[in-house]
């Protein structure tokens, strides 16, 4: 039985990792912030309940902390107590928003907080430090990205930029401290491919959710308001009940979306953690990324719509998007760079520690299972 300190345990990846570590009989210290009405303990309990792990509560310790403050914002005694039990640290806490307006918050959470977190690793004599980064720290123009330290490059958003800066800082500071570390770089994570379950509905789900919203508005217009507005945008109901929803998505180039299920992330991460290799970097990515055309077909089939068109190149100057296209375009704006991504990822290091563990290609049955679950729970995050 090993003791782990996790940051980000209230989040999507963190909660799944926490649950798996508990199932394996380990002890977990969740280090996180109190938020608004509910404290950390309550939020962790909510996550555990979702995993059906209520009874494992005695092996979870919640420590409300402020990652941006020296000594994690804890009093002397509380900090000393926390440091007195050396534990492997898995640092997942991150601001995962992309918008430039969140620059200051992203820098603070993703980069500046490392100072206190790594001080804590030193003060508690942590045996190992695992940093969860993202596959997208690699430059966008790199066709085959290696499991190597980041090169400076241009980034699609503040998230990628701060994660890349964080990787460099982790590596440098850990070397100075003589603290063994590894870096895990997942691509884009969706729910459990076997059960469809998820407790977070961003990324892949975001697009389906946006389409569902738009579909709902027009179905209602056609069903109960005469549908004049729908017809004006060329939206109509087909004889088989399919909603014809013309939606042109313009992308600069053909690319693919690298998606992995959360169960693969957990399986790979636990292997890495079980046999830690100092200074190793791992790509937790798919070898069979999905094309936009595939995903568009999946969405159409799942939502009973037709008319999504992926077009490549600049939108014509004369293009007047209909309101549905305009809203969809706006809602998926943060994700746009990922829709025409051409990077592929080498995962030699991962294969070495976790042979035989690979994510399945995202098939329609998996997609449908995951989306059906999301709709069933009405896209309700547990956070």
């Amino acid at each position: 039985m090993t003791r782990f300190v996790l940051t980000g345990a209230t989040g999507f990846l963190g909660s799944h990792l926490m649950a798996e570590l508990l199932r394996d009989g380990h002890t977990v210290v969740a280090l996180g912030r109190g938020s608004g009405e509910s404290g950390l303990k309550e939020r962790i309990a909510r996550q555990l309940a979702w995993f059906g792990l209520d009874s494992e509560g005695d092996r979870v310790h919640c420590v409300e902390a402020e990652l941006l403050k020296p000594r994690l914002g804890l009093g002397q005694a509380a900090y000393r107590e926390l440091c007195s039990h050396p534990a492997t640290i898995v640092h997942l806490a991150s601001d995962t928003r992309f918008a430039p307006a969140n620059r200051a918050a992203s820098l603070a959470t993703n980069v500046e907080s490392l100072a206190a977190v790594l001080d804590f690793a030193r003060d508690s004599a942590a045996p190992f430090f695992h940093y969860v980064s993202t596959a997208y720290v690699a430059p966008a123009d790199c066709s085959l990205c290696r499991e190597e330290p980041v090169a400076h490059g241009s980034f699609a958003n503040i998230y990628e930029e701060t994660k890349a800066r964080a990787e460099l800082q982790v590596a440098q500071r850990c070397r100075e401290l003589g603290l063994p570390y590894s870096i895990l770089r997942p691509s884009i994570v969706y729910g459990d491919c076997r059960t469809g379950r998820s407790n977070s509905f961003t990324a892949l789900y975001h697009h389906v959710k946006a389409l569902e919203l738009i579909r709902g508005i027009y179905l209602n217009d056609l069903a109960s308001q005469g549908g004049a507005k729908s017809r004006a945008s060329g939206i109509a109901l087909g004889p088989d009940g399919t909603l014809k929803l013309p939606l042109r998505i313009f992308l600069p180039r053909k690319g693919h979306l690298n998606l992995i299920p959360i169960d693969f992330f957990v399986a790979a991460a636990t292997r890495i953690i079980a046999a830690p290799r100092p200074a190793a970097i791992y790509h937790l990515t798919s070898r069979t990324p999905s094309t936009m055309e595939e995903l568009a077909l999946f969405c159409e089939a799942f939502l009973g719509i037709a008319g999504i068109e992926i077009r490549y190149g600049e939108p014509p100057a004369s293009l007047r998007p209909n309101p549905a296209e305009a809203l969809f375009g706006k809602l998926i704006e943060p994700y746009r760079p990922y829709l025409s991504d051409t990077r592929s990822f080498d995962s030699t290091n991962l294969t070495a520690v976790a042979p035989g563990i690979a994510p399945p290609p995202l098939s329609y049955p998996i997609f449908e299972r995951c989306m059906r679950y999301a709709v069933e729970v009405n896209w309700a995050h547990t956070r």
Partner: protein
Amino acid sequence: MVLPGSAAEVAALLRLFQEAEISWTARGNGSNILGFELDEGAIIDLNRMRELSFDEKNWSVRIGPGVSAFELQRAAFARGYRVHVAEPAALVVASFMCSGILSLFATSYGTSAEGVLDARFVAPDGSAFSMNQKEGPNLFAFAPAPQSTPGICVSADLKLHPMTDDEEGALIPCSTLAEGLELARELAQRRIGFAVGVLGIEYVASFMSPTQELAGEVKSVLADSLGMACLVLVLGDSYAMGSLKQMGHPLIDQRLFRALSLGLPDLASAPWLDLLPQLSQDEPFGYLKAEGFAELAETALAPSPERLAQKVDPELREFHEKLYARPELTDLVWLNMFRITSSRIGREKHFFPILLYLPLEAGLIEELGARFQAIAKPRGIKHEVGFVTPIDAGKRCIFEYDYYVDQCDAGEIARVREAIAEVAAVIDEVGARTGTLRWMRYVLYQGFCRMENLLYTEVPRG
């Protein structure tokens, strides 16, 4: 109760009352919220004095003390001007006597004497004086202490303001009050828009909704489902609207506001509503920037006067259909210049406004708001931020925080009285600490004071 018809009759009355030692109180429409228009002795009701004459070459309109805000604005508007008035039923002169004019237009039209060219009075001894005379009472002065009435105002010359033909309104939602305050300050400082105000959600919901029930639903949609802490209302010309967009703010523009107003019945039940904030976590309210969002809202809500009228009592439906078929009822500029904005507040319960002039600093306003809340909450008093309007290029603002009280509930009245005493102590304490707070309580009978005297003249500390 006497109803004089002229300044001479007012003078004769005041002389008579002085000789006979009869106390008196002036009365306008009797609707000020603090009850200063009823007292022992005679009530001098000024409703018969309804002079209304324009001197356009001097950008001036003369009014008698019986002219209401609505009458005056309507007459000015018909000639292509705007005046600065309070809620429609208030008599304009009474508003000056009582509090000065409080509205979002204070951003560009200022407050207190800023709106006045001259005013004529009859003093308690029956003698006449005007503001624009070398000798006589100095109504331009302001003292931070209770005052007695300078007499009866028998006519006032108010400023006419020009309008342009491209005026529009927009609401900018904010996730925190501090964000809204900072935006309002910036707009005032940059002089973008001629009327700016940060509106609390209760305020906006009451303003938009024809019934109390609907107001409750709207409040929950805006605050809980969409995550709005406040909305910044901006009125301006097309250049101001262009600037707002250029600054990158998500806007509820005039068209969307109309769709929301007339589509309120479907808003609360819209199944897609919860998804919107989830889909815009990166940029709250970013969806408002999608071209055609207003059209999408029209598709979703099917807004129409008939639809909205379904929500009122059956016997009122026909009236509401006709009413909301008028474009004014969803026109942000019109609704604000006639101050309909505030006229629906207090529909559920009487409201007691705590009104302050102070620097437009989020920290200070949040501190006061939190303390007013802490006073109200344990006493079970309903309490909400009303509005904040920048004045004088954002150097100062008007801040209204409202307590709500059921006037038929003696217990609640007692609790509110007790709460107000605590509020007074907080205002005194913060006022002494900062030296920049002015409480509206002291503006009674000083509403004609020079704006700068009110806002900036050093108040004795401690």
